[in-house]
C-alpha cells in the first residue's frame, strides 16, 4: 500500500515536472474599504514549474519582500513563502530613521483550485491583503518566465518578479588582445556538469581553455538568501587543459553583459552570459 502511494506520488511529480507544464501565480493586491474592497494592483507570473514569484510591497513605514515557491504533491500543492520584512520603528537621536528587520517562513497546503489570501503586514483590521491563485497548464514546450503587472494606484510601490533558476546558460566567449577580438564562441553549459574544452583563435594563435559552469556561493546576507536574489547568477570557472588550478572565475547574471578575465598569456577572456534559446 505504501509502495503504491509512493509510486503514485512519483508518477504525479514526474508528470507535473515534465517540460510541458507551466505554472502561473495570479495575484490581486486588495485594500479594505468601508463600502467594497479596492484592488490596488493585479498581475501574474508564469514559467516552468520550478518558477518562484518575488513580491515587494512598500509603504512609508514598512517593506515586505516575499519569495513564493510551490511544490506539487499529488493533487495538492505546498505553497511556501520566505518573508523579509522591514518596519520603521522610530527615529534615532540624530534624527535618522530606525528600522527593524525580520525574516520568517510560512507554509500552507492547498489544492490547485484554492484561492489563498496573504496578509503581508499581519492580520490588522485595515491591512491590505494579496489574493493568490495558482494555475497549471500544459504548454507545448519549456518556455521562459513571463510577468504581467498592472498597478492601478501609481502612488503605491509594489513589484512583482518571476524568479527562475537557469537549468542551462548560453555563454559567448571572446578572446581580446588590444583592439583585436576573436570570433565569438557560443556554448550552452549546464551548471555543475563536467567541464568542456573550448578553443579560441586570435591572430592565428589558438588558445585552449577548459570551462565549466557552477552556481555562486550562497549569499551571506539573510535577505539575499531568503529572496533568492542570486537565482540567475552563474559562475564560469576557467582553467588550462594541463592544470587543475583555475585561471579564474567569472560570475554574473544572465543579462548579456560581457565580463572579463585577464589570462596569463596577456589576452583577456570576455564571457557573456545569456538565457538559452527556447528548445
Amino acid at each position, binding site marked *: 500500500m505504501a509502495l503504491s502511494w509512493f509510486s503514485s506520488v512519483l508518477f504525479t511529480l514526474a508528470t507535473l515536472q515534465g517540460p510541458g507544464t507551466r505554472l502561473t501565480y495570479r495575484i490581486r493586491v486588495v485594500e479594505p474599504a468601508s463600502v467594497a474592497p479596492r484592488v490596488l494592483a493585479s498581475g501574474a507570473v508564469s514559467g516552468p514549474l520550478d518558477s518562484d514569484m518575488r513580491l515587494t510591497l512598500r509603504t512609508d513605514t514598512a517593506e*515586505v519582500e516575499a519569495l513564493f515557491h510551490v511544490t506539487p504533491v499529488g493533487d495538492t500543492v505546498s505553497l511556501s513563502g520566505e518573508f523579509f520584512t522591514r518596519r520603521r520603528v522610530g527615529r534615532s537621536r540624530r534624527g535618522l530613521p530606525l528600522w527593524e528587520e525580520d525574516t520568517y517562513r510560512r507554509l500552507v497546503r492547498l489544492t490547485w483550485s484554492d484561492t489563498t489570501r496573504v496578509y503581508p503586514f499581519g492580520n490588522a483590521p485595515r491591512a491590505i491583503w494579496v489574493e493568490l491563485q495558482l494555475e497549471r497548464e500544459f504548454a507545448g514546450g519549456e518556455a521562459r518566465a513571463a510577468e504581467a503587472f498592472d498597478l492601478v494606484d501609481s502612488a503605491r510601490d509594489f513589484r512583482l518578479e518571476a524568479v527562475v533558476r537557469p537549468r542551462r546558460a548560453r555563454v559567448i566567449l571572446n578572446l581580446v588582445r588590444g583592439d583585436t577580438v576573436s570570433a565569438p564562441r557560443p556554448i550552452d553549459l549546464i551548471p555543475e556538469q563536467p567541464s568542456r574544452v573550448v578553443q579560441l583563435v586570435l591572430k592565428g594563435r589558438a588558445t585552449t581553455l577548459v570551462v565549466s559552469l557552477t552556481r555562486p556561493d550562497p549569499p551571506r546576507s539573510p535577505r539575499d538568501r531568503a529572496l533568492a536574489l542570486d537565482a540567475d547568477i552563474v559562475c564560469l570557472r576557467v582553467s588550462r587543459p594541463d592544470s587543475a588550478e583555475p585561471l579564474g572565475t567569472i560570475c554574473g547574471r544572465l543579462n548579456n553583459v560581457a565580463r572579463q578575465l585577464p589570462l596569463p598569456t596577456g589576452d583577456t577572456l570576455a564571457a557573456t552570459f545569456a538565457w538559452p534559446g527556447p528548445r
Partner: protein
Amino acid sequence: MADATHEQWLVQIDAELDGELSLVERAALAKHLVTCAHCAGARASQLEVRVALARSAGNPHAFVVPRPAIRAGTLALWVAIALGTGLLAGWAAERRWGGPGGGAALEETRGTIVVQ
C-alpha cells in the same frame, strides 16, 4: 468697613486670629461682632478649629497654630525615594516595552497565508 459684606467680615475674622489686623480694624471688627451673632459664631468656630489643630500638633497651649517644620534630612530622604521610584519605574517600563518598536507582539505584525 461700615458697609462691608458678610464675606468680608469673615476674612477679617481670619486675619484677626492670625494677628494680622491693626488696632483700628480690630476695633471695627469688635463692634460688628457685638451686633452680628452669625459672625460671632463663625469666629468661635474658627477658634475651635485652631485649638484642634494645635492639639493635634502636640501643643494645646500655643498662641497661634503651629506650622509643621520640614527638616533638611527628611526632605533629602523623600527626594531620594522619589528619584529611586522614578528610576525603578523607568527600568521596568524599558524591560516591558523595550525602546522603539514596542507595542504589538512580533507574531501579530508578521505576514500570514490563509487558504480560502
